[in-house]
């Protein structure tokens, strides 16, 4: 009996090469994170005098955290609040819009659907950076720059999320079910809220995660739109602290930039751990035809 014949397809052979590649990738991912965590425990002086992967003379993590939140009249807390606002309203709104629109495009036949599809694919292909300056000028004419709307409104549009829900809804929501609901007398809104939304949940969570991550990491748009530090999100604020280290009158505060970065990634890590379950099923759903 050959070994090949007995191997169950559910238990594939271990590949040393793939394991090695994975290990390298794991290191590649974890080493910068370890550096960040270790560096966050050092004072500014230790940062500049000790090796990156070794702890400094004093364990200053808690001092650093306290200083991060109090430096410059506590502006960091304000930035954290801004980022949360942009994520909740912006990414939340983007998810709702993408879900409703994606479902509509997938399940309702109407004229111009193909055109919408073409525009959508085009929109996915255009990098946000290229649109930043025109968007700025438009918003400036509307008097919306330097307000939270300048960040929230562009975040509401997520062509990729829409596309994801569209393809997901095509597979996950059977037409027969919708017809059955209609025959039972349910209105379209009720069908969407009670039937479709539940079927779409894994897809919606996936879109929400994408939207949360991209809004949380949004840097370029707020950099252009905002010139008042009190509306900065964490990304732009941290960069401003980091940029203090160069040129005439340089005042490097790397220890605060690093500690601030750690604080910035913690909520994202938590969001991923909590939503991981949904996310995995969201990515693979529709890959097998029942």
């Amino acid at each position, binding site marked *: 009996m050959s070994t090949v014949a007995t191997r169950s397809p559910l238990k594939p052979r271990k590949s040393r090469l793939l394991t090695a590649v994975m290990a390298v990738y794991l290191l590649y991912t974890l080493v910068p994170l370890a550096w960040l965590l270790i560096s966050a425990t050092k004072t500014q*002086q230790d*940062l*500049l*005098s000790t090796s990156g992967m070794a702890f400094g003379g004093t364990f200053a993590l808690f001092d650093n955290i306290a200083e991060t939140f109090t430096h410059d009249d506590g502006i960091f807390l304000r930035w954290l609040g801004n980022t949360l606002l942009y994520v909740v309203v912006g990414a939340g709104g983007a998810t709702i819009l993408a879900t409703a629109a994606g479902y509509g495009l997938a399940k309702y036949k109407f004229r111009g659907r193909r055109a919408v599809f073409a525009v959508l694919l085009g929109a996915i292909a255009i990098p946000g*950076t290229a649109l*930043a*300056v025109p968007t*700025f*000028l438009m918003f*400036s*004419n509307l*008097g919306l*720059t*330097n307000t939270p709307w300048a960040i929230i409104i562009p975040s509401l549009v997520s062509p990729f999320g829409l596309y994801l829900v569209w393809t997901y809804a095509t597979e996950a929501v059977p037409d027969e079910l919708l017809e059955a609901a209609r025959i039972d007398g349910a209105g379209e809104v009720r069908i969407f809220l009670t039937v479709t939304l539940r079927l779409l949940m894994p897809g919606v969570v996936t879109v929400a995660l994408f939207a949360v991550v991209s809004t949380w990491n949004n840097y*370029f748009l707020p*950099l*252009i739109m905002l*010139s*008042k*530090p009190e509306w900065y999100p964490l990304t732009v604020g941290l*960069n*401003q602290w980091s*940029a*203090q*280290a*160069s*040129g*005439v*009158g*340089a*005042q*490097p505060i*790397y220890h605060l930039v690093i500690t601030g970065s750690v604080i910035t990634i913690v909520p994202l890590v938590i969001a991923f751990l909590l939503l991981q379950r949904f996310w995995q099923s969201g990515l693979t759903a529709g890959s097998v035809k029942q």
Partner: protein
Amino acid sequence: MSPTRRSRQVAIVLATALATALSACSSGGDGGTAPGGATGTQDAVDAALREGGEITYWSWTPSAKAQVEAFQQEFPNVKINYVNAGTGNDHYTKLQNAIKAGSGAPDVAQIEYQALPQFALTGSLVDLGQYGFNDFQDDYTPSTWNSVKVGGGLFGLPQDSGPMALFYNKELFDKHAIAVPKTWAEYVDAARKLHAADPTKYITADTGDAGFATSMIWQAGGKPFTTDGKSVKIDLQDEGAKKWTSTWDQLVEEKLVSTIPGWSDAWYKALADGTIATLALGAWTPGVLESSVKGGAGKWAVAPLPTYDGGTPVTAENGGGGQSVLKQSSKPALAAGFVRWLNNGNGIKPFLESGGFPATKADLDSAAFKDKASPYFGGQQINQVLTAAAGQVVPGWSYLPYQLYANSIFGDTVGKSYAAGTSLDPGLADWQKALVDYGNQQGFTVNG
């Protein structure tokens, strides 16, 4: 984000922003200032200060906050909204965008000398000559005054200056018995000697920095950028530029300069532990060393910048800038009054207290400033060297009307020569070509 990717992004934004600014300018609207500059008296400014009001001020200088507080104490009827909108390019991008948008710009902004022509020539700044500020000419060093005069107009008052000097790690030089170089040839020899004695040490760090390169060309007597109205001439292979590259090429080709990027955490570390032995930078450098390279205390010293012939000391400006009034301001006279207070009045005191290096002759010449012994520099009276340098700047330099964009693509052109360890001349030629093409696209007539 890697430095190159970031600088490319910055380049894109600066390019777009400038393009729109220039097209706005050429399509009528607020044109440039008439040649010859405006004239007037300071009466309007004094009246505006008495009347009071509210203005916005953008700056990232360390003294800005203290200055605003002191000003408001002196003029309780004036309210200044102080905003730190960003450092360097972030600040300029926002400023340029607000100018293009037609609203949202501050009344007063900090603008470095290298960036001033870009804002002045596009008609975005108020010619302070109309408030009689040309009378202040004799208060400032010639090089800083020349930097705020663009095309005959006066587009700001100088705040600080950065005459270059050689900051060196004396402990390291003494240890290896290396003499402080007086000429650039001796500097190259010192670089070889130091690196041979201890291969972990480098004479300096340089991965290609536009501000440094232009200052070095300036000191060598080069005048690569000349602007007359919309006609620009670029020659990055003039005698001065070649004089600099023939020296600096030796360091780059023999890999005698460290490749630690400037202003990074590693750079600060290298300054403290002696990996980088010298810095040829502006006179504001001691403030940076004292506050942020504490490990170097007692080790560093200052000497005049080396020259090419060892004769009369000559130097160049490196960094520094002043404050300007924006055309968008609805209270230009009040804004001008704040600028006058900042750089020609009581605002200089908080500036000096924060460790700034002034542009005003009276403060440079005062005995208290000159004779102050610096504990960080082992008791050396560093301002003796630095104030002398302020009077030895080669006259006649000007920056490009799109210097910010130019600096942002320096790494993509000259930076390649640095990375490859080859002569900088082909890199400078590439830079020039890119700048000529860009300038012509932007509506200038560029020869080069």
